[in-house]
């Protein structure tokens, strides 16, 4: 068994089945992936995402360190703001994607599961290399992380917090008290729905928060949600999963993160990325919706006119659309929106259309 969450016993009581993910043993589902998925799209679900990492960056040059090591200029974000970004190597490939939260004079970053060590080491190396006055501290095991997601999340969370959630803008973050326990609250998530994430320290306080949310959410049938539905929810919204979309070394340009690129600052990998952008000759992450039968999965080849043009990085059945959906890295200049490609599923080709992200549009529940 891998590292368990501080909420492990509670998950067992709630009937979870578990999976190993990046060295952690986490709930993959409680009732059914489909039901949990639709519960978040239509109502509210509660996730334990304590497998994600927590790293504090502090000191006079904290913002400078973050800016130097990510595709974002951290100095643009005042205290109480957070932002999605990516750390890149000299060659422009992504080490990890993360949210950073600016809280008072410090920054908390949330590297992916199992990435706390590599990211902390990388940042410390840059502190030395560039002589920054900054401290980097891996506090992953001191924190539990809870996400409350879905159109009813705000209503439910408001019942147990002193913070006026209507005043917390999208991607804002603040210190808060939830169910009598202190935490960091941010208006963020990985589902594409209205939602909040809570960084809880000490980690054992997460149990009280989780149980209290389950209690006050009972009237709207709140459900605990496992990693299975977390994955299908994010895929429908075309959010990246580091282990899939950055596998083998992918740059932010390849991974469709141009919108998150901030070019007006100096950062590690900038030169390589500018060159790649100018050159244009790189595979791009492309959204494919199946029109044929079959479910695309990670690693399946994509063909066009009998020629291999790329590979699926993430694929699944979409519980909302009830079709197969995939994100795939495809060669440049071969297909455009509306074109048909073939996904090779166990030796047979299955047709899919190139579509615009996201697969499931905003406020899906209102129209279904």
């Amino acid at each position, binding site marked *: 068994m891998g590292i368990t969450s501080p909420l492990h016993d509670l998950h067992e009581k709630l009937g979870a089945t578990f999976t190993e993910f990046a060295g952690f043993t986490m709930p*993959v*589902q409680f009732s*059914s*992936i*489909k039901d949990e*998925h639709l519960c978040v799209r239509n109502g509210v679900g509660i996730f334990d995402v304590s497998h994600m990492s927590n790293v504090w960056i502090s000191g006079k040059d904290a913002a400078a360190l973050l800016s130097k090591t990510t595709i974002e200029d951290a100095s643009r974000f005042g205290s109480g703001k957070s932002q999605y970004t990516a750390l890149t190597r000299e060659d422009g490939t992504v080490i990890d994607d993360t949210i950073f939260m600016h809280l008072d004079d410090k920054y908390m970053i949330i590297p992916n599961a199992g990435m706390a060590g590599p990211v902390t080491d990388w940042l410390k190396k840059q502190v030395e290399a560039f002589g920054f006055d900054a401290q980097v501290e891996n506090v992953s095991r001191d924190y539990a992380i809870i996400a409350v997601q879905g159109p009813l999340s705000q209503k439910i969370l408001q019942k147990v917090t002193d913070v006026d959630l209507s005043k917390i803008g999208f991607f804002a973050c603040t210190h808060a008290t939830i169910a009598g326990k202190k935490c960091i609250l941010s208006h963020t998530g990985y589902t594409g729905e209205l939602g909040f994430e809570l960084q809880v320290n000490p980690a054992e306080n997460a149990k009280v928060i989780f149980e209290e949310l389950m209690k006050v959410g009972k009237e709207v049938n709140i459900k605990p949600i496992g990693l*299975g539905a977390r*994955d*299908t929810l994010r895929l429908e919204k075309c959010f990246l999963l580091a282990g899939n979309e950055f596998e083998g070394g992918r740059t932010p340009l390849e991974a469709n993160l141009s919108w998150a690129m901030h070019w007006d600052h100096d950062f590690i990998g900038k030169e390589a990325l500018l060159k790649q952008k100018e050159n244009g000759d790189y595979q791009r992450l492309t959204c494919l919706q199946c029109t044929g*039968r*079959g*479910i695309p*999965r990670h690693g399946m080849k994509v063909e066009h006119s009998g020629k291999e043009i790329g590979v699926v990085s993430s694929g*699944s*059945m979409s*519980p909302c659309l009830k079709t197969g959906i995939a994100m795939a890295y495809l060669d440049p200049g071969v297909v455009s929106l509306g074109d048909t490609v073939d996904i090779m599923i*166990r030796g047979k080709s299955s047709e899919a259309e190139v579509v615009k992200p996201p697969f499931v549009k905003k406020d899906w529940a209102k129209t279904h």
Partner: protein
Amino acid sequence: MADEVRDDLKYTKTHEWVEVKGKTAIVGITDHAQSELTDIVFAELPEAGKEITKGDELCVVESVKSVSEIYAPISGTIKKVNEDLEDTPEIINENPYDDGWLVEIEISNKEEVNALLDADAYKKLL
């Protein structure tokens, strides 16, 4: 809730069930298998007329997150496949022993029937 095992069927260690009717065998997956797989969303069935050997991959069923191979419990020729599974694969979850059957096989080697597990032997595996 305990998984249902029907006394009148034969079973395999890999959680397929077989109903032998003279020369033909109807094949599906057990209640235990469907509950382990959860939320079946796709079934890829063989074509009628195909010859298969015991132990070969018979078909593939997929849940939201996983892909599982189903093995031929018996050698023979595929006579019929359950076409309802094309549009409603979830009937395997709802009714694994009746509406959720997978294929009908014309048995080529009757001896293989004797090697299948009876209900009591299968129950011991669960």
